[in-house]
C-alpha cells in the first residue's frame, strides 16, 4: 500500500508497510473541520464586513461583524489546538451571540429578512455540531479531587534515604572524587 510519508524517508530507514489504527475519534475530525470553518468565516467577517451586512440587510453593523470575525478566528485557532475543547465551547457561546445579533435584524421592514432566516437556520445547525463536538472532546484528565494512587514507599534508594545521604557525606569527605562539569 502506498504511504505518502514514505517518499521523505532517508534511504535505508524504516518505511510504513501497513498503518495501525488512528487514535483520532470522529469528534476530533469534526473539531478540526469546525476549526477551519471558523477561521474561514472569521476572515470573511473581518475583511469583508460590508458584504455580510448587505447580504443580511443590516447595514451600519460593520464594526460588530468585524468583532465577530475576530472572535471566530480566535475560537477557530483554539479548536485546532490541543485545547480544542475550550475552542469548541467558545464557538458554542459565539453561536449564541450570532443568533442574538441575527434576531435583532429580523424586523418587518428588513427587505433581506429571508436571508436572515436562512442564516439563523445555519447557525442553529452549526451550533448543534459545535455542541456535539464539545461534548465528545471533553478532556479525560481526572478531576482535581479524584482519588489518586500515592507512592510513599518508592524512595528509589535500596539502602534507604539515610544510606543515600551517607553516600553523599562520603563524597563530600573525598571532594576530589565528586563529579565535575569538566570530566577531564
Amino acid at each position, binding site marked *: 500500500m502506498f*504511504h*505518502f*510519508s*514514505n517518499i*521523505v*524517508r*532517508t*534511504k*535505508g*530507514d*524504516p*518505511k*510504513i*508497510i*501497513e*498503518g*495501525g*489504527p*488512528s*487514535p*483520532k475519534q470522529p469528534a*476530533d475530525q469534526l473539531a478540526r473541520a469546525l476549526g477551519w470553518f471558523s477561521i474561514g468565516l472569521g476572515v470573511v467577517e473581518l475583511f469583508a464586513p460590508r458584504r455580510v451586512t448587505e447580504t443580511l440587510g443590516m447595514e451600519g453593523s460593520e464594526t460588530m461583524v468585524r468583532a465577530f470575525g475576530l472572535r471566530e478566528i480566535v475560537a477557530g*485557532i*483554539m479548536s485546532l*489546538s*490541543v*485545547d480544542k475543547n475550550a475552542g469548541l465551547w467558545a464557538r458554542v457561546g459565539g453561536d449564541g451571540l450570532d443568533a442574538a445579533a441575527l434576531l435583532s435584524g429580523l424586523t418587518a421592514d428588513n427587505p433581506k429578512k429571508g436571508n436572515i432566516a436562512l442564516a439563523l437556520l445555519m447557525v442553529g445547525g452549526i451550533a448543534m455540531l459545535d455542541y456535539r463536538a464539545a461534548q465528545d472532546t471533553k*478532556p*479525560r*484528565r*481526572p478531576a*482535581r479531587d479524584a482519588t*489518586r*494512587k*500515592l*507512592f*510513599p*514507599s*518508592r*524512595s*528509589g*534508594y*535500596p*539502602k534507604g*534515604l539515610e*544510606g*543515600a*545521604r551517607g*553516600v*553523599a*557525606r562520603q*563524597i*563530600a569527605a573525598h571532594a576530589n572524587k*565528586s*563529579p*565535575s*562539569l*569538566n*570530566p*577531564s
Partner: protein
Amino acid sequence: MKALVWHGKEDIRCDTVTDPEIQDPRDAIIKVTSCAICGSDLHLFHNFIPGMLPGDIMGHETMGEVVEVGSGVDGKIKKGDRVVVPFTIICGECEQCKRGNFSVCETTNRKRHLADKVFGHTTAGLFGYTHLTGGYPGGQAEYLRVPYADATHIKVPAGIPDEQLLFLSDIFPTGWQAAVQCDIEPTDTVAIWGCGPVGQMAIRSAILLGANQVIAIDCLPERLSMAEAGGATTINFEDESVVERLSELTDGKGPEKCIDCVGMEAHVMASQPDTLLDRAKQMAMIENDRPHVLREMIYVCRPGGIISVAGVYSGLSDMLPMGAFMNKGLTMRTGQTHVNRWTDDLLRRIEQGEIDPSFVITHTVPLEQGPEMYEMFRDKRDSCIKVVLKP
C-alpha cells in the same frame, strides 16, 4: 516490525514498518527489549516542536540486544551484547565529544543544515526527535538502527533487570546532570520545579550529591508523594504560593540552587496570568515556549545562585526577567544531557545499590498499547508517571 509512528498532532499509531538496515560500517542493529515514553515525547505528541514528519518513529529511551553490527565497529560491540542506547548519537571523535560535550557532537546530525539555521550551530543527532536533530528513527519499535554504534552505546551487564538500567538512556543522567550543574554544597537548598520522571531523578541526584534540603514543586499528589519518598519537602502550587513557601523554607533568603524539570509546557492556571498569556501566544504560534518556571526561578533564586535547566525548550520565550537575572548575579546552566559523560558513574551506583531508578515506573505494557499510553501519560490518568513499553 512494529513501531510507534508519528502521524500528526495527537496521532501516534502502532504501524508495521520495514526493518532497519545497516547503512554505515559504524552502525549496529539492536533488538529492543524495553523502551519508554519520555515527558519530552509529549512535546512532539502535541506538535509543539517543529520538524516532525508523518512516518517518523518515536522514542529515545531504549535498550536491547545487539543482533547485527557493521564492519567498522571495530570490536567495541558485538552480536549478543546487552546495551542501553543513549538518546544522543555521538561520534566520539569530534572536538566536542573529546571535551565530553556529547550532546553537541559536531558530526552526528545528518541534517545539520537545519540545525545550523535554527540554532546557529548543529547539535548532536537524536533518536526520534524531529528532523532538526537528524530525523533518526526512534526506539519505540522492535528493532533500532544505532548509528555510530561503536561510540553510541552503554554496555550493561547481565543479571540486572532492564527496568533498573533503561533510564541510563536519558532521564537518570538528565536529572543527574541537572543536579551536577548546580555545584551542590552541603549547606545548599535545591528547589526543583516539576516532579515528573526527570524531576524525580533530579531529587535523588541532589540527595546523592549532598544537598542539605531538597524542595520539590508540583501539583499532582502521586508525584508529590514519590518526591517525598525520595527525601524532598514538597510544595503543591495549586494549594500554596511557591514564592511564599520557598521563602519560609529558606529563612527568607531563597534557594541557592534551582532546577527546571518542566520546560516549555508549564501548567496553565488562572491565578498565574502569565501562563494564560503564554498559552494564548503559543496557540497563535507567536511564542514557542511557556517559560513560567524560568520566570519564577529567577525571581526566587538567592542572589549569586545557580539555575539549572533540564526541561526542554524549543524556540522563543517571552518576558524573561533579565533585569532580575543580571542584577542578582545568577548563573544559568542548560543543555541536553551529555549522557555518556555520566553513565559509568551512574551504572556503578546502580550496581552498588545506591539507587534503583525503576522506582519511577508506574505502567509496563506491550508496545502495541503505546498510542493509548501517550494519552494516559498526557492526561495523568491512573496516576501515570512513567510508562515502559515491551516490544
